[in-house]
């Protein structure tokens, strides 16, 4: 038994200057967004029989068995639950897991949820990992988390290929120019390459403006099968055509090759399943926790050869009007980044494929690729989708 799988509804919590516009709890943000995403799909909460979630909130405590708290708060009784947490790519992996469950008829309507109040609660503390288990070989050495792992990768890429800080800065500048077309983006003031290079060095060679924003954020995505949808929702549905995931390590010490992300594995799997080539992709949303994340992922996904990422992004190529439009919301670098960003890649891809992207709408938007990255270049999940 196999069925078509679609993303039929999305809802994203509104932000004001990077914090929740409506200051309710992380569980209530997820409940509101789930309800709104289900409505966006023309469905009822009673239709929901699958729940997927991940996050960093309330551990230990209500977040320890996170799916149970979310299920309870939403008032649903799912027969399929997935709490896979592999970092920011988790929600892109959730699309794959929901798709597999729906293809097999294991559930019919799955909701993926996320929320983080890291900005308003000042709750971001990724560095406080107790020095036990594998962390006894990591925490004592004072690598900044997570930027230090990405800095080690950037340094290695510069050494092997001559990549420059200017090339990395191009990625931040392009993101800002897209954000200037997105009224919902957090950072919309002008940004130049010099601004990035003169921002403070945090972990060499990465500057403050090579790093994503720290904002609140939350949302929900409804994954289902077209047969569950009414005519209007079916017309707006986005088909999940292929997916892949790959995980290789947690601590950067165990990353086999610092210039090759797991996307080198997850990308080809997803593209082959979807039966697409690079030329078929109109919309590309790539996790941009740091500028280097984008550069490495473009190479890993095969948009350019290893080592050519720096030249690939030069001269405004990935900015509005460039030959390779990507991260059209402004991305994690300029729109929002609530700690785990993978769901927000999905939102923007769906908006583009639905023709809902306003001033930043791409002329041709039929097939999209989303690639989430989690941890310290630890995990990736790739999703290919199309609007027909």
């Amino acid at each position, binding site marked *: 038994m196999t069925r078509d799988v679609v993303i039929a509804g999305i809802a994203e919590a509104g932000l004001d200057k990077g914090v929740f516009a409506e200051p309710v709890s992380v569980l209530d943000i997820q409940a509101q967004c789930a309800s709104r995403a289900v409505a966006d799909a023309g469905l009822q909460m009673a239709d929901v029989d699958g729940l997927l979630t991940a996050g960093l909130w309330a551990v230990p405590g209500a977040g320890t068995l996170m799916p149970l708290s979310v299920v309870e708060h939403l008032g649903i009784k799912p027969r399929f639950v997935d709490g896979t947490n592999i970092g920011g790519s988790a929600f892109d992996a959730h699309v794959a897991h929901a798709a597999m469950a729906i293809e097999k008829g294991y559930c019919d309507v799955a909701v993926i949820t996320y929320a983080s109040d890291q900005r308003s609660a000042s709750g971001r503390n990724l560095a406080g990992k107790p020095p036990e288990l594998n962390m006894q070989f990591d925490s004592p050495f*004072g690598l900044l988390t997570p930027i230090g792992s990405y800095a080690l990768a950037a*340094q290695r890429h510069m050494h092997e290929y001559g990549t420059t800080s200017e090339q990395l800065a191009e990625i931040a500048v392009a993101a800002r120019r897209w954000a200037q077309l997105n009224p919902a983006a957090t950072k919309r003031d002008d940004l130049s390459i010099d601004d990035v290079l003169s921002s403070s060095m945090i972990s060499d060679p990465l500057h403050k403006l090579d790093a994503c924003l720290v904002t609140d954020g939350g949302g929900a995505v409804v994954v289902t099968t077209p047969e569950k949808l009414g005519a209007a929702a079916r017309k707006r549905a986005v088909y999940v055509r292929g997916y892949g995931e790959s995980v290789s390590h947690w601590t950067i010490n165990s990353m086999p090759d610092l210039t090759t992300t797991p996307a080198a594995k997850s990308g080809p799997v997803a593209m082959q399943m979807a039966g697409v080539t690079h030329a078929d992709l109109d919309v590309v949303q790539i996790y941009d926790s740091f500028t280097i994340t984008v550069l490495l992922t473009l190479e890993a996904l095969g948009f350019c050869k290893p080592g050519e990422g720096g030249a690939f992004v030069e001269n405004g190529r990935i900015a509005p009007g460039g030959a390779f439009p990507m991260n059209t919301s402004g991305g994690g670098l300029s729109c929002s980044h609530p700690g785990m960003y993978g769901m927000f890649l999905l939102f923007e891809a769906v908006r583009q494929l639905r023709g809902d992207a306003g001033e930043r709408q791409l002329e041709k938007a039929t097939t999209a690729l989303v690639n989430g990255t989690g941890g310290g270049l630890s995990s990736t999940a790739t999703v290919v989708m199309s609007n027909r």
Partner: protein
Amino acid sequence: MTTDSATPTRPIPIVDTITARFWKAASEGRLELPRCNACDRVHYYPRAICPHCGSEDLTWEQLSGRGAIYSWTVSRRPPGAGFKALVPYVVALIDLEEGPRMLSNVRTDDLDSIAIGMAVTVDFEALAGDISLPIFRPA
């Protein structure tokens, strides 16, 4: 570095059964790691099976302590109170002569001298209790 209970220090590793040998050796000024008798590879960090082939047949051995910098960064801000007195400092991935790669620090007064490929050798920094941290210095 001297430590006393009033001064915040680096996080002190919480030692477990398998890693105890590594930390005991370090406290005595030696770098020791398990070598796999099935695939002959040394691995870091120490664990109950060889991460390269899955074998449980491991023998600990003393390493040369020599290696080369695979990549490096400088932490310009402290990731916790215990690092405030140390910034800026080098965090590096060291490729050890015997094969494994190790996240550690390279102690130097000259940050500009640090480069990928630089030869380094192990040193030990005493922390609280019986723990000494294996860090590196230019060879």
